[in-house]
């Protein structure tokens, strides 16, 4: 990973500075959303932005913005923005929504580079994989293109949060769908970036509904509830990431083959 030393230093110092302040209580996740485990990782660039400007800019890109930002009815901003601004006092969140439905990971990667150049976001929230799974994109080329884009973002000091594939009971055993899902997980691990396990969250949601003795939720109901649950998970992840202590030595990701 090549981050200019000055920027990296500033980011780490800012993250440490922010962490020194009393971090806010991370937003709670509604009971109905279950308890999907999401790793805590510091978001160094965004922590620096928070420290310097009290403002973070999130670029939302990928198949369905509604699915990751939450529903914002009656002229309200999306749920994600509302939760973050409510949780972190004085924080101004700007969401630049550049979702383009139907786009594959490779095309989205090219567009991300342009949007980053034009909008200079602190975080890229990238929902990726579902369209590639549906379009039967070979796993290797998916992994290569997503991995390259994530590496490019890290080199440009932009925090990355990958939002993975959706859980739907009907396609839980679809081999290519699962292969793309596993591939995205590998990219997140190799590149050491956050991945919101949309699949796991939805699976937990379905399981929670079943264990609580409620009649099994239909996939359609699951989806609608899932949109707002995803926004809650992402808001929590960002809040934790903004105040998390940076690791002493960040592991160096292996270059994509």
């Amino acid at each position: 990973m090549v981050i200019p030393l000055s920027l990296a230093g500033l980011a780490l110092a800012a993250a440490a500075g922010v962490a020194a302040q009393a971090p806010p209580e991370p937003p709670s996740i509604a009971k109905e959303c279950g308890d999907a485990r999401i790793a805590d990782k510091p978001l160094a660039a965004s922590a620096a932005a928070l420290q310097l400007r009290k403002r973070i800019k999130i670029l939302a890109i990928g198949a369905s913005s509604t699915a990751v930002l939450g529903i914002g009815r009656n002229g309200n901003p999306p749920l994600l923005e509302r939760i973050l601004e409510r949780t972190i006092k004085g924080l101004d969140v700007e969401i630049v929504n550049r979702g383009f439905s139907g786009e594959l990971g490779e095309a989205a990667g090219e567009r991300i580079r342009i949007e980053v150049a034009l909008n200079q976001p602190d975080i890229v929230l990238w929902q990726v994989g579902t369209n590639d799974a549906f379009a039967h994109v070979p796993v290797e080329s998916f992994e290569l293109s997503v991995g390259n884009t994530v590496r490019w973002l890290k080199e440009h000091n932009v925090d990355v949060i990958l939002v993975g594939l959706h859980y739907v009971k009907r396609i839980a055993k679809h081999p290519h769908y699962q292969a793309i899902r596993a591939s995205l997980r590998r990219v997140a691990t190799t590149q050491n970036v956050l991945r919101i396990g949309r699949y796991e969250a939805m699976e937990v949601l379905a399981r929670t509904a079943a264990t609580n003795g409620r009649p099994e939720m239909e996939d359609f109901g699951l989806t609608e509830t899932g949109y707002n649950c995803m926004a809650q998970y992402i808001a929590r992840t960002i809040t934790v990431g903004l105040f998390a202590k940076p690791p002493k030595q960040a592991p160096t990701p292996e270059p994509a083959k």
Partner: protein
Amino acid sequence: MPRQANALDFWRGFALVSIFINHVPGIYYERLTHRNLSISDSAELFVFLAGWSLGLLVGSSNKPKSNAAPLAFRLGGRSIQIYAAHILISGLALALLAGTAHLMENPLILEWHNAAAFFQDSARTQMGIVLLSHQLGYFDILPLYVVLMLVAPAFVIIDRFAKPLLVPLSLVLYFASLTVPFTAPTWPVEGNWFFNPFTWQAIFVLGFALSRDEGLGRFVRSNLTLIRCVAAPIVLVSAVLVWFNWFPDPTKLPDPRLLFLNGKSFLTPIRLIQFLALAAVFSAAYPVIARVLPWFTEPLSILGRNSLNVFCVGSLLSLSGQIVRFLYSGSVIVDTVVLIVGVGILWLTAWLSEWRERQGVGG
């Protein structure tokens, strides 16, 4: 009687088939479309030829100037026709997605093509669809076309009464949109139009201006050989750049970055220049194709002659193709079936449109 095969209809048909293929992401034959060797793609060709057609519709520059008012009404009528077609196919696409989601018990299908907003917030999204501020993915070129045809009377009037101003005014708007920058917003989902109408109008106006027998059109026709000599290296260098993906890091470009990067939504200058070079070079190809492959020109020309109907059916077929590929895995065999059936239905749509006209149905 439908008109004879010609270059305009042929290239329009070519653009329609390319758009159909490119709108089935992941299909094997995607790698055979010209965008793999060209910075611009079939969208630029389609809009440029729409401008060129406007020039033919308006007729000779020497027509009496009193014809402006009826012409404006005619263009307005065409705009309403395109708008109605767009609303119809958007409704059908939503129904197709909803039906497939139900049949497959897979709600993910409801998220395709920016449709999630419609199914989650239908009241506001329905208004957005009618206002053209909410566009489904891959169903976003007709809204641009509607706007361009609505503004077309202004282009025609400027062409009639202040011809030398048309292209400069268009380019001023184009560069203003790139440098400020500004575009048309979407609603209720916050975002931007995929095709920025303030920049894409430039290629439409250039198509119109180049089709005319005076002004820029006459200049280009008089110097076509020289222009092709300049254009050919641009086309070749672009092909190399695209093939090896040799584009600079967009964050390293000077401001205003939209003037230098390769962006389809804003139709950035690199795309516009490359397209014009491509058009200059390939305008020489049609007579050769018509002579060497005469059986090839009529099937594409019939598509081009009935472009609106074919485009609408093609949009729905692309969506259906995506569903088929998901259901039956995207093997080369499935992709070949999607291609053959798709292009076959496009041709049938065009043939039925002309048959209907021959029968005098619908006036």
